[in-house]
């Protein structure tokens, strides 16, 4: 029987072969403190990794045998808007039921709230797998991740009230965007006022583009400080659908991820609870929420790339022209090789980022229980920065790759790919949103640029360059060094120009050069350990990335302040 986890050994490799994994398990399990109290808790690192594998086998099974077979119908039917509520496509309910029966909700939450206490890395893998089956459904299901923000910033009463419900299968949404507040969330105007009489907060106004907007539990960004106009007047609220007061005005008609209802919401004096402190809504909580969501989109993107690879490979093997399978033509095989190379490289970046997030989040959580040692504080600080720096790389690059892979997948299908009968068109449509929502690629660049100019990535890459590689990989290591030197020269010359507009213009180029160099290193590391899985992709990806770095460098070498005028449009 098909299984989207066991059929893809590259994911298992990422789970089992990182030297960071034992540390993640120890931190997440608090040195296995739960083992006597909870029968599902692991006894040691090996036992935990065994459990992770078993969990992902279930995810792979449900995805292959329920979610994926339903994807076409869900895409065709889409959700329905009825009396101010959302009714999902009928098979979406089948998917949700299977997930709930399996208990695949609240996956990262502690066991005391009925969670599975899984690392972010394992949850990320689950996300990737589900997305391979149906990225639109993954959208709904993976919003369970919002609970992480409630767990981090809500009070104990709120944790006890909401987390077990999410673990039990209730869905979530994050209500951020408004008609005039998209990328610029500082402009959010949804009004939150304190109702003295009933001693609760009330929400009034509207939100737009809210994924899964009719969910059971909403995290809402609203203006609690009357008269303010910037991000400091915004707070985070929890709206419980059981209290009522929020209606769905309409469902958007989208290009892709049809299974996922995107809603316009109307808040009519809706009762809600303040989550955390006033005024920290945007500057602290939404930033945390967004970082989690961005890793989620990176995983969704990798899942889509895997789907593109599956479809393209199957078609290229099957389709015969000029007396042979089209996979035998180098022009087709190159497209396939490129898809696989981008998939393997992007996946390596995804899981490296997830591991950084894991160590940082686990230490941060421990710091809520006890005082960290100086070593732990230093570790927390380092991994916080690594997570912060790598998340925009993983999200931006993988979402762009998912788009390119979807494009190539259709190209391999030729005319058939343009017809709606094949899955590739859905992958292509679904992928399109990934480079837009949770921060466009342009905004990922903004998030990453300071780590480019302050030399943070350069430091990480420099450390990797110090690691010795087997002789047969020495030539790759040299090429990577040359790429990095080229990148550093470009950074230096842009910094030297000391012009913000030039830097903003160069940012995307420097961002891609950095991300590609990073991914080359990660793929090299993987290929050394498992050449049978990654050897070909290493070769193809380094060729591709090196050429790309050269292209960006050539452009940047010619770009100067005098040319800026020609890049301005009115």
């Amino acid at each position, binding site marked *: 029987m098909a299984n989207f986890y066991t059929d893809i050994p590259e994911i298992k490799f990422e789970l089992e072969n990182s030297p960071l994994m034992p540390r993640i398990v120890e931190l997440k399990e608090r040195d296995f403190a739960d083992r006597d109290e909870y029968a599902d*808790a692991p006894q040691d690192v090996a036992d935990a990794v065994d459990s992770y594998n078993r969990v992902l086998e279930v995810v792979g099974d449900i995805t292959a045998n329920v979610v994926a077979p339903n994807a076409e119908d869900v895409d065709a039917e889409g959700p329905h808007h009825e009396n101010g509520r959302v009714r999902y496509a009928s098979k979406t309910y089948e998917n949700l039921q299977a997930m709930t029966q*399996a*208990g695949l909700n609240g996956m990262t939450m502690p066991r005391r709230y009925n969670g599975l206490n899984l690392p972010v890395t394992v949850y990320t893998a689950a996300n990737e797998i589900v997305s391979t089956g149906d990225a639109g459904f993954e959208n709904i299901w993976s919003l369970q991740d919002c609970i992480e923000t409630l767990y981090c910033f809500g009070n104990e009463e709120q944790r006890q009230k909401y987390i077990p419900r999410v673990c039990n299968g209730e869905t979530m949404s994050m209500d951020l965007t408004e008609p005039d507040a998209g990328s610029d969330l500082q402009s959010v105007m949804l009004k939150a006022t304190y109702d003295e009489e009933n001693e609760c907060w009330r929400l009034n106004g509207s939100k737009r583009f809210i994924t899964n907007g009719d969910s059971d539990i909403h995290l809402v960004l609203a203006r609690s400080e009357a008269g303010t106009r910037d991000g400091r007047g915004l707070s985070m609220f929890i709206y419980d659908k059981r209290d009522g007061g929020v209606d769905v005005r309409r469902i958007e008609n989208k290009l892709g991820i049809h299974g996922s209802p995107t809603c316009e919401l109307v808040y009519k004096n809706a009762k809600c609870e303040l989550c955390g402190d006033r005024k920290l809504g945007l500057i602290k909580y939404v930033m945390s929420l967004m970082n989690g969501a961005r890793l989620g989109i990176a995983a969704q993107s990798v899942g889509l790339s895997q789907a593109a690879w599956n479809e393209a490979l199957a078609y290229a093997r099957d389709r015969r022209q000029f007396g042979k399978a089209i996979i035998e033509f180098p022009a087709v095989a190159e497209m396939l090789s490129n898809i696989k190379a981008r998939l393997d490289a992007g996946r390596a970046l995804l899981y490296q980022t997830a591991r950084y997030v894991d160590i940082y989040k686990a230490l941060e959580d421990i710091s809520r229980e006890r005082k960290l040692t100086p070593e732990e504080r230093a570790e927390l600080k380092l991994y916080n920065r690594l997570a912060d720096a790598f998340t925009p790389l993983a999200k931006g690059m993988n979402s762009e790759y998912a788009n390119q892979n979807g494009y190539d997948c259709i190209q391999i299908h030729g005319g058939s790919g343009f017809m709606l009968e094949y899955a590739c068109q859905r992958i292509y449509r679904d992928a399109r949103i990934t480079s837009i929502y949770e921060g466009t690629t342009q905004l990922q660049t903004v998030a990453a640029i300071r780590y480019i100019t302050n030399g943070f990535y350069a430091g990480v890459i420099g450390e990797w360059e110090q690691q010795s590689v087997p002789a047969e990989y020495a030539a790759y290591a040299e090429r990577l060094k040359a790429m990095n030197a080229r990148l550093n020269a470009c950074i230096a010359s842009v910094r030297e120009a000391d012009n913000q507009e030039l830097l903003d213009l160069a940012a995307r180029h420097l961002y891609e050069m950095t991300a590609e160099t990073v991914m080359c290193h990660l793929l090299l590391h993987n290929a050394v350990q498992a050449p049978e899985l990654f050897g070909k992709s290493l070769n193809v990806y380094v060729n591709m990335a090196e050429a790309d770095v050269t292209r960006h460098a050539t452009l940047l070498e010619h770009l100067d302040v005098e040319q800026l005028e020609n890049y301005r449009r009115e």
Partner: protein
Amino acid sequence: MSLKIVVLAKQVPDTRNVGPDAMTPEGTVNRSALPAIFNPEDLNALEQALRLKDKFGATVTVLTMGPGRAAEVIREAVYRGADGGYLLTDRAFAGADTLATSYALATAIKHVCPDVDLIIGGRQAIDGDTAQVGPQVAEKLGLNQITYTEEILSLENGIIRVKRHIDGGVETVESKLPCVLTVNGSAAPCRPRNIKRLLRFKRALAPLELQNTTYAELPYASEYEKKPYLKIQQLTCADVEADLSQCGLAGSPTKVKAVENIVFKAKESKVMTGSDEDVNGLIRELLASHTIG
């Protein structure tokens, strides 16, 4: 109301995806090429039991007969929601036909769950395809039986209403409890494994699976001490006080006269069109050779 339900389940070779290596050159089943699986319709049966458990509260016990490796069926059922199970295993059960199998199962049910409310099994197993064991268990226990169950419609005041699949339609029937249901493959598919249950029971083993070692020598040995449910219970012929003469080969009136090895060796191939003429010709040919009909 808390029901007592016994689910009958069998481990079978996966005959659904038979490849070219499914048979050995000697004409026996190549077990390594056909993985052992949970008999598909027994999973439909398990789902019906678990739905009753969800609705009314029930203790769902799985009973399977087979060698040590058949304990996998019990683990799988427990991962999906069954409360526990028994592996009925004894050399004396070997070679049982459907009569001896149903005798062994009925005897075991009397022993482990004398006040059973419902016994639910799949319609038939994909290895033997007889569909006899469920009905024979009912007969031996003197219980009503409803075969080809597709859906349990209600259960009130000790009366169960069942929609059963019949040729060309469905039929709704009632029976008082206790009774035996056999479940059709068209019934709801079984729910997936539940993660918490999976992690809790993942180390569960039957004594026969230990193979020359003991629980105390296994990795995480202390777990088996602390969590008795990790030791899957086995029942022998003696445990259930079965009459040896009715067990295994001795209790099996079915006598195999001969086993014929048929190895298809296509010497030639014929190409036929979809025309009525060609199809009729093929049917006549197959009838003449007694391949069909």
